[in-house]
């Protein structure tokens, strides 16, 4: 309880300063930084009319599907690459080349190949989240205490059984870390992708309202 109050101090202070600068003194003009009460009002309005909820749901659905595709590719591939030096050697270079490309840079191709819409977004989310999951899975498999796989062999396990019953559970914490990072990157990619090529979702409404605001500002000065 005490901790909760403690962690609220700074946010409340920030809102207070924000209110002083905008509503009370008017030191920062409204079109640069809207006042807190206006922001909260719009926020509740967007919740009330369902626009925000719908956009959030749309965005999260895309992230969800994108992550499923990523996980389905990256986890098995990561386990194989971590387990077998041959498989790793085969794929290392391709992964090394594709990994540093920012997922957003794929947007033109995504639109060209898949058009605007769900498939295109999932493709971008996939490209953003597949590598953290892959790299963490490989790392997790390589870090396994070799004694655990040797135990499995001496108890009569085949290589496949060892992978399924020892390597996978032992690498699970790393895989989960990869998924967590993947969710974050996936969400960022989605919003960014929606700002460019979509007609729904959080990124789309940001761009839409940005346009409204621009119009308003332009009107003021024209």
């Amino acid at each position, binding site marked *: 309880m005490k901790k909760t109050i403690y962690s609220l101090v700074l946010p409340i202070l920030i809102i207070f300063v924000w209110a002083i600068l905008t509503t009370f003194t008017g030191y920062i003009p409204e079109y640069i930084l809207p006042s807190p009460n206006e922001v909260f009002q719009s926020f509740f309005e967007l919740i009330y009319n369902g626009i925000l909820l719908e956009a959030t749901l749309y965005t999260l659905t895309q992230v969800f599907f994108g992550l499923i595709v990523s996980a389905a590719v990256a986890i098995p591939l990561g386990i194989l690459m971590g387990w077998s030096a041959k498989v790793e050697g085969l794929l290392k270079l391709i992964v090394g080349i594709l990994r540093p490309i920012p997922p957003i840079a794929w947007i033109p191709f995504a639109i060209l190949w898949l058009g605007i819409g769900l498939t295109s977004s999932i493709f971008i989310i996939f490209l953003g989240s597949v590598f953290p999951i892959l790299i963490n899975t490989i790392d997790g498999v390589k870090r396994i205490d070799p*004694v*655990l796989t*040797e*135990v*499995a*062999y*001496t*108890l*009569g*396990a085949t290589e496949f*059984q060892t992978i399924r*019953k*020892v390597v996978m*559970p*032992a690498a*699970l914490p790393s895989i989960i870390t990869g998924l967590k990072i993947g969710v974050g990157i996936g969400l960022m990619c989605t919003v960014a992708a929606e700002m460019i090529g979509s007609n729904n979702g959080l990124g789309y409404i940001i761009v839409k309202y940005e346009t409204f605001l621009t119009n308003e500002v332009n009107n003021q000065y024209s």
Partner: protein
Amino acid sequence: MITLKNVFKTFDHNGKTLEILNDINLKVIDGEFLCILGPSGCGKTTLLRMMAGLDMPTSGEIIEGDKVVRKPTRSRGFVFQQYSLFPWLNVVDNVSFGLELRGIDREERYRKSREYLKMVGLLPFQHSYPQELSGGMKQRVAIARCLVNKPNILLMDEPFSALDVQTREKLQVELVKIWENEKKTIVFVTHSVDEAVFLADRIVVLSKSPGLIIENVPIKLKRVRDRNSYEFLDVKKDIIQLLND
């Protein structure tokens, strides 16, 4: 029965060839408790790993029954020096691991596993996880996990070396009991003369690197052995003499 014929083992280290084991010839007789005794770095663990199939000899061959050992199998159980329980499985699931691999149904494998957990005195801990157990308990579970799998031979690599003296001596007594009840063949690697003399029917003494067999010492002392008896101390003295020569 395991037979080692002219087994050599070398490692490449920074371009130099290190001789680890030199011309080892050894027969492990069914039902015997054999200790391999030697100073650190004499290759005794490597020797045991090769018997298990975890390492391959550079030359020579290791034969179990009538088959050449090429990879680890269930017939040669191994208890490791370091703690080796699966941390994500509780005690009874750890013990059942080998049975699960063979597709034995849950009820049956738990029944068998509990039998062996009872034998090592850990039945009350069947639902605990490895991190909740002491070192001695972990090694007991590892032994039960091995035995429930019904190996022909039990290979043990200094399993008690990380434990305190009291626990170690208690587990030695328990291991002799288990060996007498289960009538298993055991090959036990150790650097402790005391441990070897307490446990073994026969001690194979290895020299410092490159490891070669100095002597085969049968231990005829009556069980349960008294560590403070004159006979026990005499045998110990003889073996220490052998190691120092």
